[in-house]
């Protein structure tokens, strides 16, 4: 089978190792071991093949990409292949010297996430002492020709402080600001009752975000995403299955999205055995929900399918047990009451950290 879709971005999960243990971590419950990670040479080939496929952006992430000793080599290889190099990092253990080698290698954009406005709560959410390290890194970043994004990860535990949280971000003066509601995949799903905001919190947050957007116009580019579980229609997850992006996990499995491994029966081809171009075209996992052939009748007949591509398959599976079901976020889903029930309850729950 061949596809006319052209991938735009490559998410390179170069390792699952991470000094943080965030309660909202969306990585799988079972992490890949360091010993099984792809080699430097494997990644170099992946980046070259990605650029040949027409991919423009690589997003180095994990886990914590800094855990890879060969990170400067990986960045240089991606850049030499012609890719724009983004890195998502906790910043923990990133010295000025090491950052200099990464920028020298070709790093163009660095994203740093924050967990809350103050030390105790932020470290509680991150499962480690990291807040002050992140704050200390910001003035260092500013010395380099690098785009800088602050990502505020929001959920029930910190959404009441959103205004102050945005204030903290403004003080850090990034080029971009993302306000990212937690999504319930991987480890985060275990903490959903702790993390899911209440309706009142969500309603209060909307005008705060709108005002910040207005205030920061021309200064900081703000991107905010409405929390999925309170929407009436599903998100256009990953821009459509197998339509825009590829994810390579630490051991080389090529996936159409971050969470796809939860779907039973999907098998992922590995970049150790196949070229990226072949995987994009022919891998059964990429073709499984590509286009609209898999869709239930309600979606097939719905004009919104051009916008949301049928929503999120992983979410459909996680909530209903059927990966072909209508995404329950959609108000046309017979299972939409799953979400209305969750919205109505804000149970007391204890945090569960990764062991």
């Amino acid at each position, binding site marked *: 089978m061949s596809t006319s879709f052209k991938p735009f971005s490559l998410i390179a999960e170069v390792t699952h190792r991470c000094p943080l243990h965030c309660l909202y971590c969306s990585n799988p419950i079972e992490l890949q071991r360091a010993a099984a990670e792809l080699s430097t040479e494997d990644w170099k080939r992946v980046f070259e093949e990605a650029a040949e496929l027409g991919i*423009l952006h690589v997003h180095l992430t994990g886990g914590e990409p800094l855990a890879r000793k060969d990170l400067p080599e990986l960045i240089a290889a991606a850049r030499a292949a012609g890719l724009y190099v983004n890195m998502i990092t906790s910043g923990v253990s990133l010295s000025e010297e090491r950052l200099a080698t990464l920028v020298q290698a070709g790093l*163009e*954009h660095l*994203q740093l996430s924050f967990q809350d406005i103050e030390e105790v709560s932020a470290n509680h959410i991150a499962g480690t002492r990291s807040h002050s390290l992140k704050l200390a890194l910001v003035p260092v970043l500013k010395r380099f*020709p690098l785009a*800088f994004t602050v990502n505020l990860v929001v959920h029930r535990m910190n959404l009441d402080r959103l205004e102050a949280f945005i204030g903290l971000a403004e003080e850090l003066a990034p*080029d971009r600001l993302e306000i990212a509601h937690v999504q319930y995949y991987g480890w985060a799903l275990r903490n959903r009752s702790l993390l899911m905001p209440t309706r009142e919190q969500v309603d209060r947050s909307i005008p705060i975000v709108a005002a910040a957007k207005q205030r920061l116009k*021309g*200064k900081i*580019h703000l991107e905010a995403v409405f929390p999925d579980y309170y929407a009436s229609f599903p998100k256009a997850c990953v821009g459509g299955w197998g339509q825009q992006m590829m994810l390579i996990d630490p051991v080389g499995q090529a996936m159409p999205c971050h969470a796809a491994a939860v779907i039973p029966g999907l098998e992922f081809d590995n970049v150790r055995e196949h070229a990226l171009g072949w995987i994009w075209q022919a891998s059964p996992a990429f073709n499984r929900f590509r286009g609209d052939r898999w869709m239930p009748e309600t979606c097939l007949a719905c004009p919104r399918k051009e916008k949301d591509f049928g929503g999120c398959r992983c979410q459909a599976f996680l909530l209903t047990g059927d990966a072909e079901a209508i995404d329950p976020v959609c108000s046309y889903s017979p299972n939409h009451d799953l979400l209305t029930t969750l919205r109505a309850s804000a149970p007391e729950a204890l945090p569960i950290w990764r062991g």
Partner: protein
Amino acid sequence: MDLQSIPRLAPGCRLHPSEPVLLVPEGTLNLAGPARDILGHVDGKLSVAAIVERLLAEYSGAPKDEMTQDVVDLLNRMEQRGVVRS
């Protein structure tokens, strides 16, 4: 942005070497028509007026007023989007 402003691309923003797109953090902006040529002159040294002069030399016969307006409009939009600074 006025004629004396000296625009530059924001950190982490660069033109794609062959495609008509501006690469920006996490994304791309498609550059229609003369936008790529305009941004090609944005180097943190040339003023808006100097960029217009360069473009007039490249597009012979183009009316100066219209060209100036197009350049200022584009750069203002790009500044609002955070990818051009002055």
